[in-house]
């Protein structure tokens, strides 16, 4: 189709049953439309989006030799893709189609004013006609896709997504900032509601990742730079020096045995100790040891090197340097997980002040057989077994003023599981859960609640207002109102466990800048659509899963990770992607090379190129351009044109809307 051809527009006005026709006088709009310039055919139909409706469009395109189509119906956000396809099937370029939104933005919002709604519908159709006359045929661009994936975060979400993609035959780079993969799940003892041992179900997957031929495991690494677009991301990864040769280290652990420096273990949340050369936990993948430079005697005082002396594999490399790895990947999955709310922000609970107030995750380490106490539940203050344990829910969660407004979703079940574990390990212990609401919504969760109630766990509805310590015994007195009995009460427990909220990673803002993705008001990464595109982001080729997107339990995380892998596999298996052609281009003759567009472009898609000496011109990389149009609005010479939203097109719409 030639651009210079006279527009022959066909207009199709939809009744949408009685949705539109019940308010707008459709016949009047058809009459009005048929008198407009360039309109060669105008009609109406009950449901334009139905098969017969689409057939009507296709037949009319052929019969009346239409070269532009306007459908006045619902929102283009709803059916624009449908009708574009219809046009395409009839041999018309799909970008020669325009829609007038006379349902959502007209008849549904002016139901009591049919006459004015009809007038408005005419104006909206006229605007669509004006734009349609100026439309140009466009062709979607096609790019090749690098058949490999980058997954950021090696928790259960990243592990699951990596295994799924690797098993589907794609190469995966799994980046984890800690020395081992495993994430928070590796720190857990049991998993609710089945009470599977967390390590028993996680470590086989970790081992699978470690030895999978399609997975390059990059632990103790961080993504530093991300450039490019779907199919063609260029990523720079910082590999932090661990001062141990990954290939040579056999993980025998002799170095850690001999190392004289003891520091609190991050993995055990400071409840246990580790050496300055260490693996975070016994099942670490990779098993490669890491020297903690901050605490190593050789690095701090220049003496020691005991590990080097005893290492049977000669794997110690004190001269190792940080290095940068460059990767090319087709897609990126963000599986960076969560942080825990800092309970010290709520001083009324005494966390950090009273030794026997701990968090749920600390409890997990206490109750874990490979934890610092060998699985014995003891009080941090005196090492005694507590005879009474209180669990307090919603620490930070559902608290707009001092914490976060949302529900962290996992804490009710986690505390019920902990309560069960106390009953199991300390027979006769008094166990009490203080809650606002118990939210046991998952499969088998309600049954688990009933089970622990049968075990004699007390559930008290009421939020604890204050905790204070008896300094002699280290016991804790809780003050609260039992809101079911309507009584203010004060009770004493030997150990208190706080169910703290799940919050976005502290690194989330930096990662947001790196990936150019959005975050929601809660600070978690935002999906492209809360219901229909739950694992995609607004940036094509970047996906999210797990708690990076919001608090969720392990089943949901794994399901979402697999979903992200499945979505990511689409461009990877196709080997190419098509992109909307609604991008910007430069009219070279108008461009003065001022560079305003280059500075304003959010995607670095515009670059000034020297065309001849002293003469610079802007150039748009259409693969990077997302079609926002910032450049077009900013260009002082009107040298940048945004396809599909050109200045003449928008001006014609303004004119048409003003005229009716």
């Amino acid at each position, binding site marked *: 189709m030639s651009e210079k051809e006279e527009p022959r527009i066909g207009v199709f006005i939809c009744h949408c049953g009685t949705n539109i026709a019940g308010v707008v006088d459709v016949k009047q709009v058809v009459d009005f439309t048929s008198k407009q310039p360039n309109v060669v055919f105008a009609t109406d139909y009950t449901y334009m989006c139905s098969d017969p409706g689409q057939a009507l469009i296709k037949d009319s395109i052929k019969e009346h030799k239409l070269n532009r189509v306007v459908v006045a119906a619902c*929102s283009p956000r709803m059916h624009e893709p449908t009708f574009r396809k219809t046009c395409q099937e009839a041999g018309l370029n799909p970008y020669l189609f325009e829609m007038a939104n006379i*349902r*959502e933005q007209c008849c549904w*919002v*002016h*139901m009591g004013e049919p006459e004015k709604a009809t007038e408005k519908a005419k104006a909206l159709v006229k605007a669509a006609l004006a734009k349609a006359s100026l439309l140009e045929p466009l062709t979607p661009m096609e790019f090749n896709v690098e058949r490999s994936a980058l997954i950021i975060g090696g928790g259960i979400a990243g592990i699951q997504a990596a295994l799924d993609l690797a098993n589907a035959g794609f190469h995966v780079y799994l980046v984890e900032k800690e020395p081992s993969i495993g994430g928070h799940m590796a720190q857990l003892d049991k998993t609710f509601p089945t009470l599977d041992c967390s390590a028993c179900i996680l470590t086989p997957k970790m081992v699978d990742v470690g030895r999978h031929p399609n997975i390059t495991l990059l632990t103790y690494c961080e993504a530093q730079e991300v450039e490019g677009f779907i199919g063609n991301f260029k990523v720079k990864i910082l590999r932090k020096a661990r001062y141990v040769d990954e290939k040579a280290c056999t993980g025998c652990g002799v170095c850690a045995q001999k190392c004289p420096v003891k520091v609190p273990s991050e993995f055990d949340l400071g409840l246990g100790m580790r050496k300055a050369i260490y693996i975070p936990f016994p099942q670490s993948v990779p098993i490669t040891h890491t020297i903690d430079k901050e605490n190593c005697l050789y690095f701090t005082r220049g003496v020691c090197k005991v590990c080097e002396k005893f290492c049977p594999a000669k794997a110690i490399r004190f001269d190792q340097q940080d290095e940068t790895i460059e990767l090319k990947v087709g897609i990126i999955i963000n599986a960076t997980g969560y942080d825990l709310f800092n309970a010290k922000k709520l001083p009324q609970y005494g966390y950090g002040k009273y030794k026997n107030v701990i968090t749920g995750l600390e409890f997990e380490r206490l109750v874990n057989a490979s934890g610092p106490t060998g699985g014995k539940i003891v009080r941090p203050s005196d090492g005694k077994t507590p005879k009474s344990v209180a669990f307090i829910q919603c620490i930070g969660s559902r608290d707009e003023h001092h914490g976060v407004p949302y529900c962290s979703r996992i804490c009710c079940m986690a505390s019920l599981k902990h309560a069960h574990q106390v009953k199991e390990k300390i027979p006769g212990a008094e166990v009490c859960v203080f809650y606002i609401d118990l939210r046991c919504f998952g499969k088998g969760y309600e049954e688990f609640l009933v089970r622990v109630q049968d075990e004699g766990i007390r559930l008290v509805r009421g939020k604890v207002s204050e905790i204070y310590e008896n300094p002699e015994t280290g016991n804790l007195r809780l003050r609260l109102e039992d809101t079911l009995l309507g009584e203010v009460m004060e009770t004493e427990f030997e150990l208190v466990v706080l169910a703290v909220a799940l919050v976005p990673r502290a690194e989330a803002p930096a990662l947001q800048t790196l990936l150019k993705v959005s975050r929601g008001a809660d600070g978690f990464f935002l999906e492209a659509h809360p219901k229909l595109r739950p694992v995609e982001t607004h940036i094509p080729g970047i996906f999210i899963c797990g708690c990076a997107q919001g608090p969720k339990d392990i089943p949901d995380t794994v399901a979402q990770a697999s979903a992200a892998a499945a979505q990511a596999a689409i461009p990877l298996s196709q080997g190419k992607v098509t992109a909307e052609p609604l991008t910007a281009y430069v009219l070279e003759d108008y461009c003065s090379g001022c560079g305003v567009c280059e500075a304003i472009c959010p995607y670095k898609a515009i670059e000034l190129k020297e065309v001849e000496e002293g003469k610079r011109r802007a150039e748009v990389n259409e693969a990077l351009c997302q079609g926002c149009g910032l450049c077009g609005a900013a260009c002082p010479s009107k040298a940048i044109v945004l396809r599909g*939203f050109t200045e003449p097109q928008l001006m014609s719409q303004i004119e048409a809307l003003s005229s009716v």
Partner: protein
Amino acid sequence: MRGWKLVAEEFTPKIIGFTCNWCTYAAADLAGTSRMQYPPNLRLVRVMCSGRVSPEFVLKAFQLGADGVFIGGCHLGDCHYIHGNFKAITRYYLLKKMLQQFGIEPERVRFNFISAAEGEAFTQAVKDFTEQLKRLGPLRPSGGEGSGEA
């Protein structure tokens, strides 16, 4: 609504709106889906980003008889195009200053951050703006003294 009808015969301001495809246009759709009602004097032009709205579009609308121009974009920090709405809002404040020099009351152009989930906020913005424009009266780009309240 009723209040609006009572005075509608006196003066109905014409409003041209520019809304970004991702947030405010979607909010307008949501207002429709939820059958929220607002005055029929607003006509929207869909752009991909509020940052696409050139001041010339606004001036053109005034030139062609609009009494008010509405611009809607994503909340700051939520822009589909990273920071397009920041550019839009900066331009908006500049434009307001410029309008004053033209003798057009700066209140005749309005910018709202409305997310795709805020159909109610969109409806309210249209109602409020309509009321405001009614108080200002028809656009008389000379001294901006024309007030509909007299």
